[in-house]
């Protein structure tokens, strides 16, 4: 693992922005740091960039102590949420900046810099835009320039801080796939900060979920989606339903209905989590636990049932038009989760 973060802490007032972070990133890997705002993901990224120094802990790259290097000596290209392009320089000048500020001995010739800028403009699909100023470009184009600028220094580490956070949903999805292609072409080790779970799961080789200054779980997208380690991770990765129940031996009992439990599941009072679209609906006398439908809401391609079982408020989502007949507000049906994850209470 070239990038190794060990025991990094960073106090923030009375509490911690980072409270003991351990993380490893493989060579050429695309890792997403996913978490709600205030979870410390941006602080961690800025520590990797050298813009912030941690209070304790170590950060090494291929065994070299990164913390001993200043930001300018790390060769960590960074892309910011609000682009941070140099507004008084043309696109070409922006991209060339990292090469032009090198000490004379290491600076490429003017012709080489021009060639490199052209290459990068082609890579980010902005050929012919070299003479424009940032203000003349759309947000998506500006962010592509920012990426080209960061790649110009041939970084050993590429850091992206919510790079698509300021863009609208459609541009965001386009850029997401484009960024992945650029990554696969350049092969640079990349750490990507986002609070958008869909973006992280769609884009990254591995996802590290952060919460309150710690890494809660790290794994491949399918791994953490299928086997979330904590209720927080389950909840953060998408819409979640929580029902209270009891595990006794090999059975989970929820509102009077029994479901199989695995040997490694906790015993005693538990909360079972399941996704709104991973549920079977049966008529009132079928399998599953009884719920009362409180609302039927048609939303885009799916229909959402808002239900209640005792104190548990639950949501069920079905493809629109595929919903069993006779479901309306006030009727009682039985729900049987197809997949669920059990966590102990307390």
């Amino acid at each position, binding site marked *: 693992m070239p990038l190794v973060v060990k025991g990094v802490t960073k106090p923030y007032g009375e509490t911690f922005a980072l409270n003991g972070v351990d993380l490893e990133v493989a060579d050429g890997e695309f890792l997403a740091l996913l978490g709600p705002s205030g979870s410390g993901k941006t602080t961690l990224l800025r520590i990797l*960039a050298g813009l912030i120094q941690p209070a304790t802990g170590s950060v090494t790259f291929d065994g070299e102590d990164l913390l001993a290097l200043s930001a300018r000596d790390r060769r960590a290209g960074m892309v910011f949420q609000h682009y941070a392009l*140099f507004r008084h320089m043309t696109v070409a000048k922006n991209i060339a900046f990292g090469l032009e500020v090198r000490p004379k001995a290491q600076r490429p010739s003017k012709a080489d810099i021009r060639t490199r800028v052209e290459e990068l403009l082609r890579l980010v699909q902005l050929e012919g835009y070299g003479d424009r100023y940032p203000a003349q470009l759309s947000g998506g184009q500006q962010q592509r320039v920012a990426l080209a600028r960061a790649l110009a*220094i041939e970084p050993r580490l590429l850091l992206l801080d919510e790079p698509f956070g300021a863009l609208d949903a459609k541009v965001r999805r386009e850029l997401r796939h484009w960024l992945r292609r650029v990554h696969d072409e350049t092969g640079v080790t990349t750490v990507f900060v986002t609070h958008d779970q869909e973006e992280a799961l769609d884009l990254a080789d591995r996802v590290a979920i952060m919460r309150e200054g710690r890494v809660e779980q790290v794994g491949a997208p399918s791994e953490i989606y299928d086997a979330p380690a904590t209720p927080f991770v389950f909840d953060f990765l998408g819409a979640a339903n929580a029902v209270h129940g009891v595990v006794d031996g090999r059975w989970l009992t929820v509102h009077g209905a029994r479901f199989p439990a695995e040997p490694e599941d906790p015993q005693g009072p538990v909360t079972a989590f399941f996704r709104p679209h991973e549920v079977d609906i049966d008529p009132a006398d079928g399998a599953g636990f009884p719920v009362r439908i409180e609302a039927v809401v048609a939303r885009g391609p799916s229909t959402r049932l808002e239900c209640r079982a005792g104190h548990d408020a639950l949501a069920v989502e079905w493809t629109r038009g595929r919903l069993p007949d006779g479901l309306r507000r006030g009727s009682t049906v039985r729900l049987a989760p197809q997949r669920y994850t059990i966590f102990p209470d307390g």
Partner: protein
Amino acid sequence: MNAGASNQDQSLVGRPPKALVALGAAYMALLVLAPLVMVFVEAFRKGPGGFLEVFALSDTWAAIRMTLIVAAIAVPLNAVFGVAAAWAITKFQFKGKSLLLTLIDLPFSVSPVISGLVWVLLFGASGWFSGFEAATGIRVLFATPALVLATTFITLPFVARELIPLMQEQGADEEAAAVTLGAGGWTTFFRVTLPNIKWALLYGVLLANARAMGEFGAVSVVSGHIRGKTNTLPLHVEILYNEYDFVGAFAAASLLAGLGLLTLLIKSVLERRFAGELSASRRH
């Protein structure tokens, strides 16, 4: 961003009552226009010859020279300090930041007379720095150094106050980007920060300069009014007036008024052409 257009867009409430417009016009004419016109009318009361008479006096040229010297020292000092202070305040977090902000504003809130008096007290016979002249042989009070000190104090907030809101708005991301791309501190400042603030800096320097050349109260207290030696142009105007040389006083004053008008002209050119690069408060 464009000044004229947005103002017109907002005048959708209809025409204001004529009486109010007349009242406003009269108010401006009486309080701003009349005194300004008066300066030039009085200056030319005895024709161009009378106007030029005061510029034949060596004391007048000494006063002009002194005004230029004082401004030439005080304004660059405050330009450098203002940029440094704004840079520190907007790009870094440190203890005592709000205290520094308050101190920068102090000269705006203190009466100019006090701003002069503090230097008399500091360098006077029983002041903290009373031994300075004996130790160095440099006369401060009633000499050029005191004029420079008082003027620098008075004009200290202008550049910093102009830059802080703009630099706050711009944030520190561009600098952070420059550093991660391998730029050092000075390179970052000269190639990223300074180009982003150059028009606002010029704007602040312009205002500081107008104030430095026009300052009367603080300078009056520390100058000692020694003719041909420690008189600045505003003080020279006062002396001429007190000696009943009204045409001379107004002729000299017209120079200051002209400077004011020139400042105003450059200021509005800056506001029109570079609105986006001045702080938000200047984009009207």
